């Protein structure tokens, strides 16, 4: 049993007696009396609880990352450097993001403000905040009910990528690598092994283990259902699971690579995936959520799944006995059930480059554009050879019990000319291919109609650009160019 130790606002702290399912937010507000950090929703959807940790960026260097403290358990901070809103002032002077928020009148009631400030703090030190859309993305995870955002946006624009030469920049040289941890408290165990060998030992001896990493999904069981997991095993400290490579035309994305890192890396190389990641979730979520987690939770929507299905991805499954590969199309067995056997983990996803002749795009349609769960998501891929469709992968989320391909629509296209009529024939198949359910995100009518229209839009879009990406402040998920 190890104590949890980490650096909090410049002070080393030690935790030995809090349940491992205590969230960072509960601990900050409770044990630490640091009430500056707020709870607004306890599900990573409002950002009032945002704090920052030192972590990797896509290029291996340390970087500040904003995260939702409501969805991070205290053992997950082990060995890290953590900053809260109360640790930003230096010698009594406001940090540039705090100062900008005051000058731009970015606070009214002030309750979202600590989260806004910490989200902006990440943006202030990011090296890659180089496009306008990234400011919306950076800030969309912090909801403000008072200001209407204009002043917050002004403050964010002023401070983005500012990278002041201060003590926070200096801290970036410290090592942010998560460390090995075995922690037991309140009758609950938490393991964070640092090798796969150690991982399989832990799994073999703890039958009640739940595997976790970013905790952005399982965290809701803790905050909403108040589940006290008896045993959690985190993959965060295993270096080989957090590697991302691009060799011989194949992207290998380690299961625990955070999505913000994936997004940075694939921006130019795997455009359909980048397009999906843009609206996947808030920055705070993408900084913790992982590819492995999104696939293994096997949500019927799981925004990455349709994208990866369309891209023809394969998952690498690792067990104590070795690894095996499973095409992603065979990975989802039924509602919330995958092909993983007990004792196995998803180690990586392998995604081939999009071939030159292929058209591929991804779509996410939700009530709100950012930080929302899809009504329908889609990854659409067709290979066109000499005017004829030779291969089609039309994958949808939100249409069935699992992310699924529309096989009859695909069959209606393969061997046919890549024309409007062929697309309409496939669209007609989509009318009966799925029997989606109706809920607060959309009725069955809406889901089916949108799925059909996404395919229509895909055809329109890929006339000129084979892997279209989204324009800044585009109107709809489809058809990036107004008037197309």
């Amino acid at each position, binding site marked *: 049993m190890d104590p949890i130790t980490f650096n909090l606002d410049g002070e080393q702290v030690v935790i030995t007696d809090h349940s491992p399912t205590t969230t960072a937010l509960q601990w900050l507000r409770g044990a630490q009396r640091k009430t500056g950090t707020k709870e607004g929703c306890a599900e990573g*959807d409002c950002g009032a609880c945002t704090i920052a940790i030192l972590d990797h960026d896509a290029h291996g260097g340390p970087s500040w990352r904003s995260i939702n403290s409501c969805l991070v358990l205290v053992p997950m901070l082990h060995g890290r450097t953590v900053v809260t809103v109360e640790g930003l002032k230096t010698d009594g002077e406001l940090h540039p993001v705090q100062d900008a928020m005051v000058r731009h009148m970015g606070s009214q009631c002030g309750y979202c403000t600590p989260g806004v400030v910490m989200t902006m703090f990440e943006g202030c030190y990011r090296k890659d905040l180089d496009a306008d859309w990234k400011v919306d993305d950076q800030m969309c995870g912090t909801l403000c009910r008072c200001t209407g955002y204009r002043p917050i946006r002004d403050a964010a624009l002023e401070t983005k990528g500012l990278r002041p030469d201060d003590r926070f920049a200096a801290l970036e040289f410290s090592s942010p690598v998560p460390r090995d941890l075995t922690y037991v408290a309140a009758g609950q165990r938490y393991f964070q092994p640092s090798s796969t060998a150690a991982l399989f030992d832990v799994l073999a001896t703890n039958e009640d283990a739940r595997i976790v990493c970013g905790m952005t999904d399982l965290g809701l069981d803790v905050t909403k259902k108040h589940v006290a997991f008896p045993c959690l095993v985190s993959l965060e400290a295993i270096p080989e699971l957090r590697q991302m490579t691009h060799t011989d035309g194949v992207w290998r994305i380690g299961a625990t690579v955070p999505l913000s890192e994936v997004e940075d890396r694939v921006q130019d190389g795997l455009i359909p995936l980048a397009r999906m990641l843009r609206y996947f979730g808030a920055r705070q979520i993408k900084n913790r959520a992982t590819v492995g987690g999104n696939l293994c939770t096997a949500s019927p929507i799981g925004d990455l799944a349709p994208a990866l299905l369309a891209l023809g991805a394969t998952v690498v499954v690792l067990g104590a006995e070795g690894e095996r590969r499973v095409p992603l199309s065979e990975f989802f067995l039924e509602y919330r059930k995958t092909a993983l056997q007990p004792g196995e983990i998803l180690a990586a996803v392998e995604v081939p480059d999009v071939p030159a002749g292929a058209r591929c795009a991804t779509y996410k349609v939700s*009530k709100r554009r950012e930080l929302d769960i899809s009504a329908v998501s889609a990854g659409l891929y067709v290979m066109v050879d000499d005017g004829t469709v030779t291969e089609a992968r039309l994958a949808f989320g939100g249409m069935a019990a699992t992310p699924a391909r529309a096989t009859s629509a695909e069959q209606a296209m393969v061997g046919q000319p890549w024309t409007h009529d062929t697309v309409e024939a496939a669209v007609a198949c989509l009318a009966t291919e799925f029997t989606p359910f109706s809920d607060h995100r959309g009725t069955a009518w809406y889901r089916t109609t949108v799925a059909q229209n996404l395919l229509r839009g895909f055809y329109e879009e890929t006339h000129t650009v084979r892997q279209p990406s989204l324009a800044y402040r585009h109107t709809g*998920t489809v058809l990036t160019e107004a008037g197309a």
Partner: protein
Amino acid sequence: MSTSPLHKSSSHESAVEHVTGDARYVDDLPEPRDMLVGLPIYSPHARAKIVSRDGTVARLLPGIHAVLFADDVPGDNLIGPIVHDEPLFAEDEVLCVGHTVALIVGESLVQCRAAAEHLAIEYDVLEPTLTIADAIAAEQFHTAPHRIARGDVDGAIEAAAEVIRGTASNGGQDHFYLETQAALALPGERGQMHIYSSTQHPTEIQKLVALVLGKRAADVVCEVPRMGGGFGGKESQASQWAAFAALGAQVTGRPCKVWLDRDRDMVQTGNRHPFWTRYEAAFDETGRITALRANIYSDGGFSLDLSGAVLDRAVFHLDNAYYLPACELVGQVCKTNLPSNTAFRGFGGPQGMVVVEDAINRYAERTGQDPAVVRARNHYGDAPRNTAPYGQEIPDPRVDRVWRELKVSSDYEQRRADIDTFNATSRWVKRGIAYQPVKFGISFTASMLNQAGALVLIYTDGTIQLNHGGTEMGQGLHSKMVAICAHAFGVSTGQIRAMNTRTDKIPNTSPTAASSGSDLNGQAVQDACDQLLARMRPVAATLLKCDEEGVTFADDAVHGGGASVPFTELTLACWLGQVSLHAAGFYRTPGIHYDHATGSGEPFFYFAYGASVLEVEVNGLTGEHRLQRVDILHDAGNSLNPSIDIGQVEGAFIQGYGWLTMEEVIYSDTGVLKTPGASTYKVPAMGDVPLQMNVALLSQADQFSTIHGSKAVGEPPFMLALGVVTALRHAIGGFSTKGGEVELAIPATPEAILRAVVNTTTA
């Protein structure tokens, strides 16, 4: 007076505390020793008889100090801000999902939750009423009809060039204040109770806690540090949580806190009222409305709460900015088995305006006219087109002037022409533009609430504590009150500390609501300052060796006869001279009255105006849209603080935009809330706000007889967002080849818009 902060922009008075995390809200206060927490346990059924309830086992569990039911209330279990019709704890029957049945008081929430598993409550489920339609059919109403009428409606309809008949409806809206409901009760000696509450209405808390505990008002103090947003949701509905905290404290003798997590807050508290209306509108050949008949119904939920006043305001605002020569406007509050709906920014005004805007949109679409032209043609104007349906004269209708200026600054006409060109060639994406005027009556329509108090305390070092009856929820009220006080004494704002709102400093306060906070409290503060100035002036004259008339207060000093002494010196001189340095100020709004029986009177002290021009782009494949540009010109009078007022305008507008386009409160067919959290209920995020948002305040807009010529600004701009519906309809109409009316539901979610597009192109 060069240093006066009045009419100047500044950051929020607590901005530095906000950005550093130092600002304290109720749940952030240092927790007193031995504090317990209370967990309300609520009904899972919309309507059911309680067959039995038993907390014996739960009470015996570790850390549990009390398990309380209706019978354990020492005072009155029936609460409510107007009528005491709301069982704090369900008695024989539960009346909605979320209705509290029991309160578990324990040492931690974890222990309380564990104990909740062992509560034995048996229900006999009954058939609930869950919609306005069902309530109308069953004749379940909270109120008698409120009717305002004039002129010959039937005659006008008969003579009309065009009659629009239809229904209009709108959904609810969760307040989604970022800080959820919270209260902390500290029992004192001799039966005193001190409550810290996140409330817009501390006096209401004081009264209801006294009522529930069987105490007198003098035994209870309510203190409000600040709120993390209110928007009306903490006007009447902060009370029950404070009452639970106080009850827990009373029963156990220990401090007790009740704090709701987000889901619980959304399930257990009410929302903006959904409305349903049947209407007939007559237009003459020039496009002027000649008559409007509307029967409007709101969903009040299971108890009356503030629903009567909300409905009244809806009826008062069925005209919006338009003159109605003849009208018959009748409203009634329905009773359903849903949480009791309550105040929310606009307070019925937006729901009332939805009706006349719908009529105008449909008329313009049917006749192929620019809806902006129709709106402008119907503006209030010179006599005789300057009396409201309830008979009040509208002395200075600024709506024409606002539109004249905004039409130019927003380049409305050119942009509308450009949109026609764009839509003619764009297949899947269409654009739309709209003009939206707003006229909003200012005053509580319950006339006695239009009063306020203040208490100004000056210390011998020249610093000042400012107390007033208003609460700070982010709207910048304290900033404005401090500015008024600083201006009066000629001191810098740093000399003045705005204190927590407390019922032992200011008694019998009105809620901080109806946009009235700075109007009412500002005058009360001014009154207190004037009293002090009158006392200090002779002392200053003696110090300065000049006439009293020659004394001026500025730059942290008093001046006269060519000499100056620091303000600090004056305050010390006052004390040495045994002159009182504290004063209580008071204000009541003069001359307002209303007769409910006849539907006539002058319920408003004045009217606030504003207008917006909005442009949207709609994707016809998915129903998604983008708000591209917004231009707003708003009348805040001679603004006390332009940057704070612009913040109110922008924030209200986006909140209204959320209500109209994405925020959906959805209940199941058994009355269970399907959208109880941030993951299922979507309020606007940063990306939903247009890059071009040009907000300006009307210049030379001094308002007669208000505090320094300013105007209320909290609610009116909410309704500027109504134009998004018109703009969306314009864009959706662009998909149609035949023109004509568009059927678009509110909220105009992507699904609603796609349905409208499909109906437009296939019907």
